[in-house]
Each structure stands twice: as C-alpha cells, then as structure tokens.
C-alpha cells in the first residue's frame, strides 16, 4: 500500500471551511428566496395591473351610465313626490262636503207656509259631521204642526243622502202676529231646528250637480 502524504492539509482545511461558511450559505439561501419572492411579487404585480385595467374599464362604463342613473333616480323621486302629493290632494278633494246638494234638499222641504230666516251650517273638523242651525217661521191653523211637518220632511230628505241624521227642535214658540196666506189670516210660530248628520258616504259620491234649489 502506497503511502500518501498530504502536505496541503491546512489549505484543504481552509477550503472546506470556506465551503461550509454559514454566512455564505445563508446569503445564498437568502438570494434564492429573494429571487423566488421577487418572481412571486412580479406575478402578483402583473395580476394587479390586470385588475387595474379591468377597474378602469368598469369605471369608464360607470362614468357613462352614472349621469343617466342619477337623472333616473332624481326623476323617480320627483314622480314619487308627485304621486304622493296628488294622492293627498285627491283625498282632500274627495273628503269635501258639498253644500249645494244639501241646499237643494233643504229647499225641497220648505213648504209655502214656512219661511227660513237663517241657516248656519258648519262642517266639523276632519269632516266628522255637519251641524246646521235653521231658524224660521211657520204659519197655519196649527203653526206648530207646520213646523213639525218641515222637521219630518227634512229628516226624510236628508236621511236619503246622509248618515246618522238628527233633526231636533231647539225652539218652537207661538207668535202673536198673524200671517196672511192666500187671503186668510194664519197663526204663526217661530222655530229653531238643529240638524246634524254624517256626510261621509255622500261626500264620496262626487261633485255636486248644479241643480236649482229654491226657497
């Protein structure tokens, strides 16, 4: 067996030492990792650029649509407001109490031997009802009966168009004065009638007809 003398023992030792230098290995590992990370970063950056271009396209689309949408929204709000306002105004219009039909009915009830001196009518708040005070004179052999006839007629006539009709005497008194009707002297009575009714059903029927009432 041949004898090998390693005269470069120390140099080999140094070379091996250099080869397994942790700093050098670490730097190489770091370099490798850095390269991988850089590649991954570039891949992500490319994807991000792609997304940015998609975003630009969508923004462009939106910038074209946005004015139309804003105008549509504004118009919708305006239309909703108009619809709401018209609805409320229609409710106000529909819930009105029409006096003309009432005056017409009243004129039908007043006979020749009766005369109305005053009519004072009020629509209660929220159209919950109507109160009317009627004052007048009745003449006849039995003036009180003439006044009662008027009351009955009013009750019947108003009952046809309104609800919860009440017609009551507030005052009914004989007068000393006589009235001349058809050449005959008749006794007279003064009466005050309180009329109350609920027009809700009739108020919804619609506008009044311009018929000619008479007194």
């Amino acid at each position, binding site marked *: 067996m041949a004898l090998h003398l390693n005269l470069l023992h120390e140099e080999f030792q140094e070379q091996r030492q250099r080869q397994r*230098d*942790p*700093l050098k290995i*670490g*730097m190489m*590992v*770091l370099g490798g*990792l*850095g390269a991988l*990370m850089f590649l991954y*970063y570039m891949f992500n*950056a490319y994807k*991000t650029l792609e*997304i*940015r271009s*998609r*975003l630009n396209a*969508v*923004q462009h*689309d*939106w910038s074209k*649509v*946005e004015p*139309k*949408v804003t105008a*549509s*929204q504004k*118009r919708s709000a305006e*239309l909703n407001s108009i*619809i*709401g*306002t*018209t*609805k*409320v*105004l229609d409710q*106000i*219009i529909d819930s*009105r*109490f*029409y*006096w*003309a039909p009432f*005056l017409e009915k009243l*004129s039908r009830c007043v006979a020749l031997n009766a*005369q*109305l001196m*005053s009519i*004072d*009518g*009020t*629509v209660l708040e929220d159209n919950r009802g109507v109160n009317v005070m009627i004052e007048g004179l009745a003449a006849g052999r039995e003036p009180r009966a003439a006044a009662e006839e008027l009351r009955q007629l009013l009750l019947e006539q108003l009952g046809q168009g309104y609800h919860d009709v009440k017609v009551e005497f507030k005052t009914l008194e004989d007068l000393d004065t006589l009235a001349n009707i058809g050449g005959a002297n008749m006794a007279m009575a003064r009466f005050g009638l309180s009329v109350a009714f609920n027009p809700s059903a009739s108020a919804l029927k619609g*506008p*009044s007809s*311009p*018929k*000619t*009432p*008479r*007194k």
Partner: protein
Amino acid sequence: MKKLNLTKDQIQKLLLSSIGFIVLLYVYFTFFLGPLNRSRDSMLMSINDLQGKVGSSKNEMMKATNLENQATAATTRHAALKASSPEGAPIAWFPPRMKAFFANQQIDKATARLEGSIPFKEADLADWMRYNWMLDLPQTDFATLGKAVAELENTEPLLSIHRLHIHAAADDPQFQQVNLNVATVMLKR
C-alpha cells in the same frame, strides 16, 4: 449522523443570516406584497361595487321608465292642480277671482277676506299651503246662491266650504246675505 461542530464565528454568522432572513421577510411582506395585495383587494372591491351599481342602474332606469308610464295620470292631474294656483300672492288674485266668479253667477259685490294661512303637516304637501277666506255675498236669492255654490264646488276642486251662514236681509226678506268660510289649498309662491 455526523455532529455539526460550529465555531463561535460560524454561530454568529448563522445568527446574522437568520436576522437577515427575518428582515427580508418583514420588508417583503410589509413594504412590497402587503401594499400590493391591499391595493388589489381594494380594486376588486371597487370593481364589485361598480359592477353592482351598473347592474342595479339598469333596474333603476327601467323602474323610472315604468314609473313614468304609470304616473302619467298623476302628473297630468298634478299639473292641473298646480295650474289652479296662479303666480303671485294669493291675496292678490283670489279675491278678484271670487268677485268675478260670483258676478258671473249674478251675485254682485262679493268680497273675499284672507283670514289666515297654515302649512300642511303632511310631508307630501310641503309645497302647499291652506288659506282660510271669508266670502261675503251681501245680496243674493236662494236659488242663485244654490247654483253659484254648486258651480263653485265643481270648478274649484281645492276649495272647500267649512261654514255657511245665510240670513234673510232685514229690509227685503226675498234676498239673503251670505257668509262663507272657505279653505283653499294653494301652491306656495
């Protein structure tokens, strides 16, 4: 297994390499990948948001078109009701209008007095006001009054008579004096 014998110098270098590795990771995630991902996420969110908006905008525009078609009657009616309130203060045009109206109905010397105005509580009527008026008709007969009231109620939809007072004229019982308390709904001018 071969035991790894490291010198002090090597351990120091190994530690230095480890620190360098940690610093590299920190810098990479904090200053490079993190902001990039955040930017990408925010862009994706913006895209989703905008696409949602674009998608809903079509519905929105379709709704507006449908509403426009459905609201034709309401818009026409609203325009007509608005037209019943001329430009200018109501006190300037309503009394002459009433005077002319009653004169047309053969009732002369009609006067209208403004008693007050109140805004509506309803949000839908924010642009409208309720005006209360007192109409005085010094001389009329019952038949003429009846026709006039019917005509008034038919031609003035936004006017309602709240109180009506008819009393015989003292000097001529054939004629009556009439007071009407009316409320009108008018556009704020």
